[in-house]
């Protein structure tokens, strides 16, 4: 039995300790915002927060996160930060097919929480593990820039 916190709730599972966190989130806890694009850590569609750090849930055996605090896109959906990113992505036109987007939002939030006023190069590095095949990234970079500008104060380091 493995116990951890998922989106603020303590949860337990009987899944094997090597099961991928990604599968657990999607199949057992039926949270579909975390997507699978590669299963090898190369696309970022499965990004989640583990103790507030951005990580790829497809590479995490659940045994490794016993006791950890896991957040998925569903867990941040009600935050002011999410609302701001949502609006910025809309205004900057950062969303096309959408498959990369929940992961991108997680990466954007992770970046801005660490670095509320990133340079363009820092933004690009911050989302460099999140593949987007539709947008060519620039409008996503714009969206993050916008969120940084508008979110003054919101992104202060915790």
């Amino acid at each position: 039995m493995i116990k951890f916190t998922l989106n603020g709730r303590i949860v337990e599972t009987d899944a094997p300790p090597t099961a991928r966190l990604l599968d657990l989130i999607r199949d057992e806890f039926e949270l579909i915002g975390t997507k699978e694009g590669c299963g090898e850590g190369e696309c970022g569609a499965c990004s989640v927060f583990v103790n507030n750090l951005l990580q790829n849930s497809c590479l995490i055996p659940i045994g490794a996160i016993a006791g950890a605090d896991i957040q998925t896109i569903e867990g941040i959906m009600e935050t002011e930060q999410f609302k701001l990113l949502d609006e910025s992505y809309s205004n900057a036109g950062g969303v096309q097919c959408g498959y990369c987007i929940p992961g991108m939002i997680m990466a954007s939030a992770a970046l801005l929480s660490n670095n509320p006023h990133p340079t363009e190069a820092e933004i690009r590095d911050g989302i460099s593990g999140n593949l987007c095949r539709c947008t060519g990234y620039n409008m996503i970079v714009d969206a993050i820039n916008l969120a940084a500008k508008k979110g003054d104060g919101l992104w202060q380091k915790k």
Partner: protein
Amino acid sequence: MSLKDISTSVPKKDHKGKVSGQLPYISDVKVENMVYGVLVRSPIAYGKIKSIQLPTLPEGYEAVGAEHISGPNYVKIIQEDQPIFANEWVNYIGEPILMLVGKDLNTLYRLLDEVKIDFEEHQAVYTLDEAIQQKSATGITMASYEFGESLENISAIEQGAHQIIEEEYDTGYQEHVYLEPQGMLAIYREDEIVVQGSMQCLYYIKNALISALDCGADEVRVVQSPTGGGFGGKEEFPSMMACHVAVAAKAVKKSVMLVFDRSEDMVVTTKRHPAKLNYRTALDKEGNILSMCVDIYLDGGANAGLSQVVLQRALINSAGVYKIPHFHAKGYVLKTNTVPNGAFRGFGAPQSFAGIESHIGHLSKLGNFDPLEYKRKYLVKQGDPTITKGIFRDPILVEDMIEDLLTASQYKTKKAEFQHNNPQNLRYKKGIGTSLFLHGCGFTGSGERDHIKATVKLLKSKDDLVSLKISNSDMGQGIYTTLSKIVAKELDLPYERVLYPDPDTKEVPDSGPTVASRTTMIVGKLLERAAKKLKTQWQSGVEQEAVEHYVHREMIPWDEKTFTGDAYPAYSWGVNIVEVEVDTLTGNVKLEKVYGNYEVGKVIDERIMKGQIDGGLAQGLAYGYLEKMTSKEGRIQQKSISDYGPPTAMDVVSIDSKVFDNPYADGPYGAKGAGELTLIGGAPAVQAAIEDALQTSFQQIPITPEVIIESLWRKEGEGD
């Protein structure tokens, strides 16, 4: 929200569900009584199946194969050469032979390893070069066309020419890497099979299913799920998966889900055709072009698929945006025992534009002309004939677009500056290059009139909400938004009152596939007309509908046999300028600046257009220098995203772009196609820039660091 100017951006219809991740893509769906399917695939490139030995299947697990297909065993596309389940010959590594279905994936994967198939192996054709050598052998040439000036005339011209330049140009594979891997679900019901998944063309799938299941039109139904990118990769390929899940669902009387793993998707799905393009050009003393012959060979892979249509577009674009005197072209699709190639944004045009832009660029160097000035000499003008004896009817703004971009990019200053500074930097060299290109909008020739015959419907509910009833997919390109805008504006309705539910063949007429940059121009126009009609009949509080059918624009009739006539009703245009820095120690290329001017008639939504520009260019540029896929003895070598190498956010730079207005009478609000155009100019511009930096010529894309280092190394050898 009311729409004043159609180009002004509005929030995308599907934005909320996408940012929150709550919009269910097919792999997010679970239905009652659902089992998974996995495919047993051929491990060999060419041979005959002698026997198949299945392991003992546990309770609830079944094998589905050719014997379960009620209709003919092929995927209905154009030719009947692509088995749903290969049961006699296999023609490529990865070809589906059987499907195992059952509840637990782990068990299925184990069973997959235990299936034993005995083959009689035959000598396979692995490369395009081998196929070219054997092109007269039976079965190798899958399609061919030839047109243009007679070869006798050309040979006479060549006799009198100052010199004849021959060049061979190669283009590689390109993999779509849509971020959502392919996925398809067949929902089993007594009286109908509902196939739902990631797709671009609902009615292609429906027709394939009617054939495979040998059933009536009301016994199958196709529903598009939110689609995580397509780029052509979900044009014809999903038809095969749909047949797999539907046949299996019928066989086991359960719903069957088939979702690919990324590596499986990389290895077995269609890709952009590798091509070889041969140019033979006669020049006079001053370097003017007297005649040109182009031969194009496309590697079709193991099945015909859509390759012949891809070849048509490649040929139609073989002279680029130029009026070349005495032009002749021929082309072939050749069969190899490799994964079948298919539709990919640009559909044959990117290969041709890379080739012709490269060749013309090289010709300009021979005559010591600036490449751009040389290209401009040959630029087509309104009223000029096309190479297929059609006409460029509408105004062409390319000259203005070039002038504007020269100023924006400071092209001349930059070029001089780089030439001056490069010798001083031993390691890094900068270069600047251009590309000029067009894209024919819509289906080739009379395809819209003869094959597609699009119909659209608008349905107004009692509470005066209007729904779009069309079979076109939003795969990210934004048609939910743009088409809704067109209808809203025409009806003077707030944009929010126009709805575009996920297309379902039970509800929507066939408005054609979502391909060929046709959706906005053709389907959008039909919707505009339907909206006009609905407006005149509008009665508040009453359910109403309006239907419109395709009307063909008067053109010079297209004749596929002689390859003459108007190939397209309209063309969109583009100019790119790209600056790069090349590391001469490693061959790595860094993009520094990217500029693009486009003309797409009229922009329906500025933000969406910019998204098409940025995304298309990122793919197009990468096609020229970054993305590399190879096949070795029939096996794709790059099975992971990193090994293949599509651009990350750190590989692209912001793009300076502008769109010129040039409304087109037969497009909604003047709009033409935009989705494919934006990809086409990337590769040739990046090639030209690399050549400028290194003062050398390349005859291939992608120009990878390996290619650059080899070229520099050879050059050094010559210098010693």
